[in-house]
């Protein structure tokens, strides 16, 4: 996990609100049009794992130690996985739902904050903060991903 590194003068990292993740989790829409929320408790899944689904996999981000592709295309390349599709499969199967059920989950919504640090080599500072929301939509032919990036007015409370 710690061996792969590209030096850069700026890094963007994820910030989450623990209580929001714990209490609200994913926003969901079911096949019958009803909307609701999906939390770690609903899935009987440890919170430490659940937040990774919401903050990383929903955005298509693989785990740091994900298995490598069996090619010589480089150490950073990992096996391609359609993470959003996997999330639909995981949550619906866990809830015992099949695509024919009216309560089958067909849309998942998540949001996270992305914080950009600039001038890392000299005087690191928070340069910008963005609300990064994602909507995953399930269709019988596949999963579509819609991303929205909304700049926030007041990045990082501790900005100099």
């Amino acid at each position, binding site marked *: 996990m710690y061996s792969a590194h590209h030096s850069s003068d700026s890094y963007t990292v994820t*910030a989450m609100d623990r209580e929001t993740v714990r209490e609200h989790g994913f926003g969901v829409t079911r096949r019958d049009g009803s909307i609701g929320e999906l939390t770690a408790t609903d899935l009987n899944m*440890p919170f430490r794992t659940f937040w990774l689904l919401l903050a990383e*996999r929903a955005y298509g981000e693989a*785990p740091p130690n994900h298995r490598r592709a069996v090619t010589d295309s480089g*150490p950073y390349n990992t096996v391609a996985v359609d993470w959003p599709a996997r999330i639909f499969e995981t949550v619906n199967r866990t809830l015992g739902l099949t695509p024919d059920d009216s309560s089958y989950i067909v849309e998942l919504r998540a949001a996270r904050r992305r914080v950009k640090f600039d001038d890392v080599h000299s005087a*690191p500072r928070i340069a910008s903060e963005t609300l990064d929301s994602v909507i995953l939509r399930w269709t019988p032919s596949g999963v579509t991903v819609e991303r929205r990036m909304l700049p926030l007015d007041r990045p990082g409370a501790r900005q100099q």
Partner: protein
Amino acid sequence: MKGGIAGAWHRFWYERATSADNLGLVRITLGIGLIPLHISNFISLLSIDPAGRSYHYLEQIWYYRLLGMDQVNPHLTMFGLGLLMVATVAIILGYRTRTAIAVTILCIFYLKGVRDSAAGDVHHRYLMWVHALALLMVSRAGEVLSLDRRRLNRIGRMRPIEGWETSWPIRAIQSYIVIFYCGAGIAKLRVSGWDWLMDGTALQKFLFIKSARWGFETLTIGYDLAQFPTVAWGLVVFTIVAELSFPVLLFVGAVPRALFLLVMAGFHIANGVLLGVNFYFTPILYVVFFDLSKIRDRLSRAPGIGASRSG
């Protein structure tokens, strides 16, 4: 006859005998260290409701995929947690030690699979521990300071432990630990080249990630540390040098070894506090680099400890 490389090889593995007690004390200490390690690694699994749903894994760990295990079994998970603790206590007591170690390793594999398969993350916190346990399992560590020894004595099947039998397991565990650290240093340079070493960003990046993870209200001392690129670079250089220097440990005296390992213990604790890297209990493994029976004997002679007891 025992000159040259072959002789040195033989001496390295078989002729640095410690007392048999040391082997038993290593088993006991590692067993005690495993308890907090299990808790810190698997405590999140206690939030699974045994009567609740069985979540389907997002990305199975390789052996789960091989075995076709695609969803958690809450009852089995709770049973595995209990069994893991019981087996670990059996290791400490030396009760059916080989079986206890085998069961412990099996439980670690199972529970690690439950945890890591849920989101696809694979953690390596148990690697050194499982190898150390496997080596103790095939050694005679369970026949010293143990209930197994009593049983073998009672049925007349206890045979003396030879010097080489106490030497090789300890040497093998030491060698594995050394290779693990050295391999981590090599991997950083192999995968990232000079990028890992040329500045402090390899550390700063993780300090930012950890600091901001739960919002700016909870920014930690790590965020403040990341403001000093030169300090971060110094720590990055230290990390690589320390990891690559680990093999030297096998050939130096007790004092420099102790100092080095003390610094490495600080390194792991700092990583835990600043970066959230849960290798807090790894330093307990360092006991294999010392003769614990000598330390025990010294402590027992120390005023106020052993002296008062014997007096």
